Structure formats: structure tokens, C-alpha cells
């Protein structure tokens, strides 16, 4: 851990944010929904550590309660898209043949749409709301995971212990669960962390456009959207939710690179890619 500063920094950042989200009711100085017109648009100061918004609500309280929804939603989306992507990837990689061809054609087709455009259209078709936005993001982001899991599965399938399990007459689902998945999952942790960062940005971006949680729900994207109109004179309304979002994304990125370093000590430290293939990940799906 000491020799891996990325991992340490990422874990502590995310740990602090998760702690703040879990302890929001205890830490919060006020009710995140309590309107106080007499004290609207206060700058950060005593009583309101991060100031108040246009309706006089406490920014820190909204930020803390918002962390629960924003981070929770990003976590749920990542978990669901990993599950879906892993299922498709393992199926394609292990079955091979026409199943593989069909599933990979589907993945290629999905890739023809820019990730955020696809998420936007799906969220727009499903209608505004946190659940619909999350569903749209899951349906968008499973493809990247499916492709990686497939290639990992293809490699795992040829391992001797898998061949041995097959020779012993184990069933296909048994082999997949007991032998293929354990080989694939650790490497997926890197993908998951980077994927969660993308999800978090897309989630806030689309909820900023009014497609996610609706006001007055405390959510970071909603807060950024509400702060937009006041950003000339009261930039603190944008600054604090923006900072929280960036810290969370930075934590996830550091965590992902930290896990990669821990997993593969031969790789160059902290995201210094040596081959174009590793550098290509990251922006491609946005």
C-alpha cells in the first residue's frame, strides 16, 4: 500500500466521500430542504459553512445529502452495467461460434453511437427521473465491459485448469462460475473504477440538463443546474458541488490506476501508458 500512492490516495478520497454520504444526517448542519428566504444567497460563513442557495437552503446540507443520491446512483449503475457486461462478455467468450459473432456484432453496433448521445436519447425517451437516467446509463455503458470481459474470457478458456475442469466433466456454468470468473474479476476492478468515473460525470451532466433527479431533491447535478443562473455573482453555488464531483471522479481514477499498478507491477506507474492500446481507453466512450 505504501508503495502505491495512487491506490492510497484514491481509497482515502473515496472513503472520505462515502463516510460523508453515510453520515449525512449526523454531519449536516441543517435540513437540506428547509427554505429560508430571509437568508438567501449567503456567502460561506458562520452558521452556513458553505453558504446558502437562492431559496436560502444550506449548501453543505444539500451537498452531504446529495452525495448519497449521486454516489449511490453511480455505484448502482456501475454494478448493474458490470453485471450485464460480464454476463454478455463471458457468454460470448466462452461459447464462441455464432453466439460470439452475434453478441460482438451487437457490441459493435452499440459503439456506433457516442456514449453520451446514446445515454441522452435513452434518458429522453424514458423520461426524466433518477431511475430512468440510471437505466439509460446502464444500457449505454455495458458494452465497454462486455468487450473487455470477452477478451479476458477467451484467454482464460485456454488455461490448463479450465481444460482440466472440462476433462473432469464439469458443467459449463460450473466452469464459468468456479474457474473463469475468478480469473476475470480482479482485472475488472480497474475497468469498474474507471467506468464509475465516467458514469458519475455522465450522471451529473445529464441531470444538469434536467433529465435526472428533479428539484428540490438534493443531488449534485441538480445543484449545479440550480447554481448556473447565479454563477456570475455567487460562484460558490457552482464551485462546491463541482469540487465534490471532481474529487469523486479523481478518487475513482486514482483507485483504478492504483489497482492496475498493484495488479501488474511491471506496468509503468500511475498511468504513464507505454503502448497506444492502453492509452486509448478513457475518452473513447464519452
Amino acid at each position, binding site marked *: 500500500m505504501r508503495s502505491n500512492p495512487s491506490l492510497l490516495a484514491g481509497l482515502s478520497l473515496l472513503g472520505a466521500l462515502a463516510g460523508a454520504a453515510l453520515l449525512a444526517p449526523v454531519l449536516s448542519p441543517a435540513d437540506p430542504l428547509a427554505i429560508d428566504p430571509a437568508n438567501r444567497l449567503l456567502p460561506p460563513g458562520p452558521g452556513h459553512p458553505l453558504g446558502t442557495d437562492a431559496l436560502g437552503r444550506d449548501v453543505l446540507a444539500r451537498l452531504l445529502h446529495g452525495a448519497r443520491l449521486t454516489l449511490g446512483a453511480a455505484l448502482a449503475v456501475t454494478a448493474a452495467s458490470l453485471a450485464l457486461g460480464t454476463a454478455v462478455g463471458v457468454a460470448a467468450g466462452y461459447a464462441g461460434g455464432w453466439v460470439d459473432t452475434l453478441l460482438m456484432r451487437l457490441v459493435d453496433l452499440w459503439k456506433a453511437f457516442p456514449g*453520451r448521445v446514446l445515454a441522452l436519447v435513452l434518458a429522453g425517451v424514458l423520461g426524466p427521473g433518477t431511475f430512468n437516467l440510471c437505466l439509460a446509463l446502464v444500457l449505454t455503458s455495458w458494452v465497454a465491459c462486455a468487450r473487455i470481459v470477452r477478451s479476458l474470457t477467451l484467454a482464460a478458456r485456454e488455461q490448463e485448469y479450465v481444460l482440466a475442469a472440462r476433462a473432469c466433466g464439469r458443467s459449463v456454468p460450473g466452469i464459468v462460475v468456479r474457474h473463469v470468473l475468478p480469473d476475470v474479476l480482479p482485472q475488472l476492478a480497474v475497468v469498474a473504477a474507471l467506468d464509475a468515473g465516467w458514469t458519475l460525470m455522465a450522471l451529473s451532466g445529464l441531470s444538469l440538463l434536467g433529465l435526472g433527479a428533479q428539484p428540490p431533491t438534493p443531488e449534485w447535478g441538480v445543484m449545479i443546474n440550480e447554481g448556473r443562473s447565479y454563477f456570475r455573482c455567487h460562484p460558490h453555488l457552482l464551485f462546491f458541488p463541482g469540487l465534490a464531483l*471532481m474529487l469523486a471522479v479523481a478518487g475513482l481514477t486514482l483507485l483504478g490506476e492504483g489497482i492496475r499498478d498493484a495488479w501488474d507491477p511491471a506496468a509503468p506507474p500511475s498511468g504513464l501508458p507505454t503502448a497506444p492500446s492502453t492509452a*486509448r481507453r478513457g475518452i473513447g466512450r464519452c
Partner: protein
Amino acid sequence: MAYAARRLLQLLPLLLVISFLTFAMASAVPGDVAEMMVIRSGGQPTPEAVAALRDQLGLDDPFLVRYARWLGGLARLDLGASWQTREPVVAILARALPATLWLTGTALIVGALLALVLGTGAAAFANRLPDRAALLFTLLGKVVPDFLLAFALMYLLAVRWPLLPLQGYGTWRHVLLPALTLGLGVGAHLARILRASFLEVLGQNYITVARAKGLPPGTVLWRHALRNALLPVVTGLGDTTGFLLGGTVIVENVFNWPGLGRVALEAIAARDLPLLQGYTLLMAVLVVSVNLLVDLSYRWLDPRIRLEAAAGA
């Protein structure tokens, strides 16, 4: 040439499937669209009015019939009329496309210049201070969401030091802030690719030969190494298209830029399905064609691929 023709032919089935997926996606909209439209136009949603509108829009036909009708129109470049304004979808998209191309084109230039400077600098001073600085910048480019960058640039360059107009459309001064917002992300991404491929190229024998001949380091870097190092960057441009088009949605909204991203948001707000279908299809077609161009130019830029293909054929 034969290769290009073959690739173009392969594109047709892909576009057909894309069109099906687009149509299916937009048709999955929940609720009675006709009822919503009657209410929006100020009428009472009586069963007769709703039924008449459903009949007029052909909403009661089976899914495949509607798709076939839409596809037939598509073959004549007719994507139907917007439900909101009754204007042809193709006309709306054609009007918004130049603004988006202007924005993304400028962003691409900004990003390419940035990548050239940062990527070359980082590779020339690998693992030294300029390299570390460039790495920090590229990491920031990954971590800062574009909408926050947009607000930060607006605050700094239009409010605090009013050098550029805050929002709007018209002159080259208006395009700079949104293009900078999108271009910084592109530059960060491409710079990472360029640095990596530069380091790979600089380790090759012909570079050692060039150095051994006593050529100045600048000549080796710019005249000998850069050409080959740029090849992976060209591939990276394919990814960039999707990133830029995805970014326009939010950036156009923030900067009030009258492009395709804004059309999409208006279509979503009004549940204007023909317009949303047209937008989605156009996005996919743009991504697919840019990727095809990248593939083709790659063969043209790198003689090794052409020779391999010729030897394999």
C-alpha cells in the same frame, strides 16, 4: 480504391441495423404520444381527437409497417416532419449541422495543437519536469467534467476578465470559449497517445542512426520521428468524434450555441420523436463515416499496411 469501395459496401448493412435500432429506441417512448400532443396544442384530449391524430400520424400501424414507412422516407432523405413545428426534420438538422461542425472543428484544431505541443514536449523530456507537467494536465483533463470546465472558463475569461463573450453565436470570438472547453479534453487525450507512440518510435533503430549521423535533436524529433508517431493519433481521432459529439450536447446548452445538441434537447423536451430519430441517426452516421475515413487514411498514411494487404491478397 477497391478496398474503399468494399468498405463502403460493408457500411450499408451496418447503417440499416443502426436505422432499425434508432427507430426502435424512439418508438419505445412510454405513454400515449398523441394524447400528449393534443394537450400541448391546447386542445382537450377527447377520445375522438386522440384517435384522429393517431390515425393521421399512423401510430396504430404495426411496428414493422411504421419502420418500413420511415425507412422508405429515409431512402428519399425524408425523415418526416417535426411533430412540434411541422417542419421537415432534414431541414432542421441541416440548419443546425453547420454550427455544430464549426464548434467541433475548432475544438479539434485546439485539441490537435495542444496535443502536438504537450505530446512532443513530454516525449522529448520524458520523465523530467515538462513530462510531469504534461501528465498532470492530461490527468486534470480526464477528471474535470466538460460542463464544469465550461463554467470555469466562462467565469475566468468572460466575467472576471471579460476577454470573450459569455454566450451566443455569430463571430469567431463566440466560438472560442466552447471550442476551448471541448478542445482541452481532446488535447489531453491525444497528447497521452502521442507521448506513448513518440517514445516507442524514438527507441527504434532508424532514430539511433539519425542521431549517430549527428543530426540535431530537433530535426530528429520533428522530421524523422513525428511522422510515424502521429499514426496512432489518427486512430485516436476516431474516438474523438464520439467524444466531441457527446460533449456538444452539454456544451451547446451551456453556451447557448444553436447546434445539433440543442436540437436534441428541444426534441426530448417536446417528445418530438421524428426529430429525435433524425438526430440519433445523424450522430451514428457521423461516427461511422469518420471511423471509415480514419481507417482509409491510415492505409494511405502507413505504407506498411498497404504492403501487408497487397502481400496477403
